[in-house]
């Protein structure tokens, strides 16, 4: 493995972590809303959130391209107002990873929140806690295991993301090329040894993530 290849791994890890940071606040909020509240149109929200799980990733990538392209609604505004480009930059990679991993995280976190008995939250309220305090001191700690499992799942998904990424960020070596994309390109170029080396790294990281996740769950049992 050359230094270029290690840089590639470093980049993939960095954007996966960045996507985690980006998806945690909205992910936790969504998971909590879906777990605790009822409202008209809830089914619609549930469907929208689950969509990236079921749609072909390239379709999700296409939708992102339609929104964040330089001439499109969001991308155009960002470009003209802040000279901020999304497509074909690392930001597009983070965007794609966040979009694809969010539904997985929300599902896991929602289940975790649903398993927290509401009576604890209610008792906390009688003791004078406001909603934010109830969430951070009662709900979240009691849902810790499930939320963590969801985070690891999201991380693994982000690392393996390909379809949406290649659509919206392309494959620019050193700037948007992730592990998965690099493996694909290596095969395209007929560079089998290179492809296998990268695939090996990918497998090792995935193994480590799942292993840690399993250990965490076991310790709490």
């Amino acid at each position, binding site marked *: 493995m050359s230094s270029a290849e290690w840089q590639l791994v470093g980049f993939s890890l960095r954007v996966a972590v960045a996507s985690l940071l980006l998806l945690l606040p909205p992910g936790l909020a969504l998971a909590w809303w879906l777990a605790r509240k009822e409202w008209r149109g809830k089914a619609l929200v549930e469907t929208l959130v689950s969509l990236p799980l079921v749609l072909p990733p390239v379709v999700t990538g296409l939708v992102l391209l339609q929104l964040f392209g330089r001439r499109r609604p969001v991308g155009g505004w960002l470009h003209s107002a802040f000279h901020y480009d999304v497509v074909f930059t690392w930001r597009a990679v983070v965007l794609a990873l966040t979009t694809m991993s969010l539904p997985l995280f929300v599902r896991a976190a929602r289940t975790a929140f649903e398993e927290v008995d509401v*009576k*604890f939250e*209610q*008792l*906390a*309220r*009688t*003791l*004078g*806690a*406001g909603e934010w*305090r109830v969430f951070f*001191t*009662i709900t979240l*700690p*009691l849902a810790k295991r499930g939320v963590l499992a969801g985070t690891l799942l999201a991380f693994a998904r982000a690392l393996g993301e390909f379809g949406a990424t290649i659509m919206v960020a392309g494959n620019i070596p050193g700037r948007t090329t992730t592990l998965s994309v690099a493996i694909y390109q290596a095969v395209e170029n007929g560079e089998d040894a290179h492809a296998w080396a990268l695939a090996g790294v990918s497998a090792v990281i995935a193994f480590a993530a799942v292993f840690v996740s399993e250990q965490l769950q076991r310790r709490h049992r």
Partner: protein
Amino acid sequence: MKGPILTANFQKQFPGGPKIVAKDLRIGGGITVLFGASGSGKTTILRCLAGLERPQMGTIAFGQESWFDSARKVFQPPKKRRVGFVVQDYGLFPHLSVARNVSYGLQELPAAERASRVTEILRWLGVEDFEHRLPSELSGGQQQRVALARAVACRPKLLLLDEPFAALDLPTRSRLRGELRQLLRQLGIPTILVTHDRLEALALGDEVVVLHDGLNVQHGVVHEVFNRPVSLAVAEIAAVETIQPGRVLSTQDGLATVAVGEVRLVALAVNLPPETSDVYVCIRAEDVSLMRVEKLESSPRNRLAATVRAVAREGPLVRVSLDCGFPLTALLTESGRAELALCEGTEVLVLIKAPQVHLIPFQR
């Protein structure tokens, strides 16, 4: 006489479920027991008072504070009501130590004061040794005390206890009942306690509110309510052992003569509406005296000949089923029964004082 501390008048309808009505509820200081069978709405009323459920309409006021007013769209969330709440299985936060559970409601205090208040309360309840333990490491009784500690640590204005003994076994229950009464007395916080256990109501409550089918039907001092139920429903809820239909034959000098089948009984006619004819006759088993031979000094106005139909031990007491012209239940100690040598078929004399024969007019 002090005015009520809490007044409530509300309705809560569960979609596709029961309707709970708190009609003109007035709770004073001291310990008030909300008494009723399971499903009678006691817990719902308690939760509405705490702010954990929201009634469809009505009002709840604590002193001058309006906690809920559907007409003026007022609703104080639990946070603002300063109510201590203890649930059936205590609800101690499983991930926090005892000390942190108890200090949860004390965030407004500076850290030092918080710590000292926690220690003080734990010591007072006798659980200071468990300060750093997790709730899962405590026994049921210990958890109950910690839950109580947590609820009273922030000096609430009102304390609500939902079946505090439901999660404990019988011996622990009887042991802790007396202790709890003492504790509550010492605290001096107006308390509302929910239970379906008559012994708990008698042991703990100053006043009792009886609930039947989601509606409060009688309110008063505990033993008065249980001895003088105003309706058949309350009599059944209060587990009066003998309830028989009867007819008032005549009333004179404050006494009424009632016929139950062929038997004539004398009862007090106070509070009996004039022209009452059909009544239910209620006699508590502990008010029935039995003897083999009549003593001339005895004063009860009701003397009946009866035959023992069955004798059943109930712990330290004995339930004696008699036939005196109608089915009658008496409660004696085992030694009393032995002294009278009662067994199936024995002929005895039943004595009941007139005030202990309670009449409930028929309600059509």
